[in-house]
């Protein structure tokens, strides 16, 4: 455990550096809850859509919907989502409001995924909002506050990165299995053509770059292998703050590319990654990825 603790990016921070990093992280947390409230407001458009549905296949957190009037359940979920996230945006330093924001988001996402498909667009927000409930209170003379605050904040970054790595691990694992079976696999030049065509046939939709990416396999190939590489190595970035901005840029570009080809929007993740990594509190002056690389390569 001591070895892992030593890997945390703020392990060697001086008191002044810790203070500066916490100041940045506190601002990011404040913006996090404003962003969450904004996203909650954008769901208002779905409110009537869900009222129009009449059959539900509830995930475990919302089985209670089966025991109340369906429309009443929907109204409760959407109303509490707005109130809970609004209160956290107003008072992000209060644990009670952060807990409320997590609970209402947890219920909303469980509801949103209770119609036949467990999509993952909200998962990262649910996980990070859970961790943020545990942010420490600031008490006079509490010397461990800065370290504890940054531990939770780092946890938020790490859990988001872990999800990408897990996704990359499955692609590598199944890639080798399909390669052994002689099938088109994840490292094959046609991999992206197959994924895009398959997804668009499932939805009957078209996208801006669908024909181009299905036909031009030599464009899709490096993009697809590059995406696997970005995903697989994501978790290591948690320990390398100099790569935070670069990785965030790469993964956001990947999501934009997926939207333009497969039509899948991961807008919530784009917002969250921009919040957590563009101005990461662990990036200190001179701590750039170029410097890290030249040090490792002895330039």
């Amino acid at each position: 455990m001591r070895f892992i603790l030593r890997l945390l990016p703020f392990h060697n921070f001086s008191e002044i550096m810790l203070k500066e990093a916490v100041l940045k992280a506190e601002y990011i947390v404040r913006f996090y809850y404003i962003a969450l409230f904004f996203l909650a407001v954008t769901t208002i458009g779905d409110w009537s859509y869900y009222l129009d549905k009449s059959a539900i296949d509830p995930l475990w957190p919302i089985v209670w919907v089966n025991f109340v009037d369906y429309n009443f359940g929907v109204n409760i979920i959407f109303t509490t989502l707005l109130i809970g996230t609004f209160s956290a945006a107003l008072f992000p330093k209060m644990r009670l409001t952060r807990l409320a924001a997590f609970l209402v988001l947890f219920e909303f996402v469980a509801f949103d995924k209770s119609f036949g498909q467990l999509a993952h667009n909200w998962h990262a927000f649910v996980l990070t909002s859970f961790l943020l409930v545990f942010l420490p209170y600031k008490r006079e003379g509490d010397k461990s506050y800065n370290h504890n605050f940054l531990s939770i904040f780092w946890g938020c970054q790490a859990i988001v990165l872990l999800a990408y790595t897990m996704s990359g691990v499955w692609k590598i694992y199944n890639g080798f299995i399909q390669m052994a079976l002689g099938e088109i696999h994840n490292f094959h030049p046609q991999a992206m053509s197959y994924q895009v065509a398959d997804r668009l046939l499932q939805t009957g939709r078209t996208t801006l770059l669908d024909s181009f990416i299905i036909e031009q396999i030599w464009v899709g190939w490096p993009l697809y292998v590059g995406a696997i590489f970005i995903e697989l190595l994501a978790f290591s970035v948690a320990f390398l703050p100099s790569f935070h901005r670069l990785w965030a840029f790469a993964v956001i570009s990947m999501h934009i590319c997926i939207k333009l080809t497969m039509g899948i929007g991961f807008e919530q993740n784009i917002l969250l990654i921009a919040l957590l990594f563009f101005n990461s509190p662990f990036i200190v002056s001179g701590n750039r990825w170029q410097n890290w690389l030249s040090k490792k390569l002895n330039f």
Partner: protein
Amino acid sequence: MKDTKYSIFVIGFILLYFLVGMITGFLGANQIFPFSAWDLFEDIPNRRNDYGVIIMSYNGKIVSPPKLFQDSKDITPEYGSIIAYRLIQNFGKAYDRSDIQEAERLRAIFEANYMKAPARYSLVKLVYDPVERWKTGKYETAYIRVFSVRSEAL
């Protein structure tokens, strides 16, 4: 001496999330929200053995030629719903393994949410190469069963 209990809690949570996700993924078990294996687009669909819904009549009108749900832009605004697609897959799989109770439950959800008017449709099995189907529209079908929604019989 630094207070490390927050760091240990965070590392423990991350480890737990990883283990639960990967184990459920390897066992092919249902995901326990909010845990997830994150096995998204993990393999390449070389040849699909899918299920589909072909609409034969809707709201008193014969659909000629019958159309796949995903191609029914002029019939339902939800033709492109990936949720409907997944529901149809689970509905078809349940029928194929003769789990009639589960199939009927999923059918009821599908019809209540996506077939808002009286309709007649077939549940079919589709076999295709995704790139070939995307380019040529070709796929093989095998009919499983015909259903009527709210007594639409034509």
